[in-house]
């Protein structure tokens, strides 16, 4: 009963993010296979713009592959990692769905109020927020140590300072190149001037 359950959850989330439905509707009946090893899940767009887990016999129109190392960087909010996601097949479909999924936000205050009533819901959430902050701090710690391992020991991810250094090197090269271009321009102008003067003399 996993598929009905996941589908219910997906549509619950999508109903809280109404622009998602509008964005997805043009792709009704199409499906996308997401590969986040070891996870592999295919989602299908419904005719009303909703989302469901695809059936056993679906043939996806597009594939999105997110390697483990890239997934970790995405978790650590490294936007540059976006470009390392591989999209195959119908790339417009894949890109739209990936964008919608990343933009999902969960309106848990509203969900809770349905269970515990509107009044206490805000109290629960203010407690919940603190708890969530702690959980997310812990998650960040865990991500940080994993990232450190991958960066220092495995050298799979570049360290922040290395990237900063690289970026400033790029800036230097760009400035140097611009200066060089300017000097060449000057030289060129000087040569033309000289050539123009010669026949007159």
């Amino acid at each position, binding site marked *: *009963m996993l*598929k*009905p359950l996941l*589908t*219910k959850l997906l*549509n619950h989330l999508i109903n809280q993010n109404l622009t998602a439905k509008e964005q997805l509707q043009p792709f*009704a*009946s199409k499906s996308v296979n997401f590969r986040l090893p070891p996870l592999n899940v295919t989602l*299908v767009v*419904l*005719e*009303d713009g*909703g989302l*469901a887990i*695809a*059936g*056993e*016999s*679906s043939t996806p129109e597009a594939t999105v592959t997110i390697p483990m190392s890239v997934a970790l960087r995405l978790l650590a909010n490294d936007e540059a990692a976006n470009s390392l996601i591989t999209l195959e097949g119908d790339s417009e479909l894949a890109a739209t769905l990936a964008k919608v999924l990343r933009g999902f936000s969960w309106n848990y205050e509203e969900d809770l109020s349905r269970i515990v009533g509107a009044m206490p819901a805000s109290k629960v959430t203010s407690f919940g927020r603190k708890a969530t902050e702690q959980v997310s701090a812990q998650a960040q710690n865990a991500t940080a140590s994993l990232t450190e391992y991958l960066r220092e020991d495995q050298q799979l991810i570049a360290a922040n300072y290395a990237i900063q250094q690289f970026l400033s090197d790029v800036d230097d090269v760009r400035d140097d190149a611009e200066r060089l271009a300017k000097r060449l321009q000057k030289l060129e102008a000087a040569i033309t001037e000289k050539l123009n003067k010669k026949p007159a003399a």
Partner: protein
Amino acid sequence: MSEESSTHFGFKTINENEKAQKVGEVFHSVARNYDLMNDVMSAGLHRGWKRFAVEISGVSAGGRVLDVAGGSGDMSRLFAKKVGDTGEVVLTDINASMLAVGRDRLIDAGLTAPALQCDAEKLPFPDQYFDCVCVAFGLRNMTHKEKALAEMQRVLKVGGRLLVLEFSQIWKPLAPLYDAYSFKLLPLMGKLFAKDADSYQYLAESIRMHPDQETLRQMMLDAGFAKVDYYNLAAGVVALHKGWKI
């Protein structure tokens, strides 16, 4: 009895003309207790499967839906809520007793839907009329499944969907257990709850004579659906097929 005119009635092979009549007798005799039995037989799971089918349909407010072999009206009731006041749901069944039960239950739920007695093999609707057609636990009772599927395809708009919810081929390791359940326990429960063991013997048998997931998928493609995808529910006890007319 010639090859062409014989068909299955559970495990028995009978004359084609007899089948519709026999199926009619079965459902006439179980109509009143049908819901209770459904709950007992599937341990209440059929409600979840039906809700999932409606969710997968992608039908939105204002949509037009046909419930084929709708009997108890479960699907119509769920769809009526989904399409809202601007939408339209038509409940149909070949059997007057089942249809009456379904219609009454819709009215009890405060919903009005036209209830129409008709054969799925000859649907009295124009071409390209519905956004969605559903048939829940009804296809296996039909004498000419190909004909019925072609009719459902005909009345669908381009972009419309057919949903078939039906007993199917269970995951092999669980099959012996399921056999014992459906051939021994089912008729017994039929006797206890609906006082009608024979009808439930037929139900159990007709489940086995039903095409497996891949075969039904191919039948739907043959009936003109451009694309068909299916879901196995409860290890394949039940499958939900969704076909698109493109």
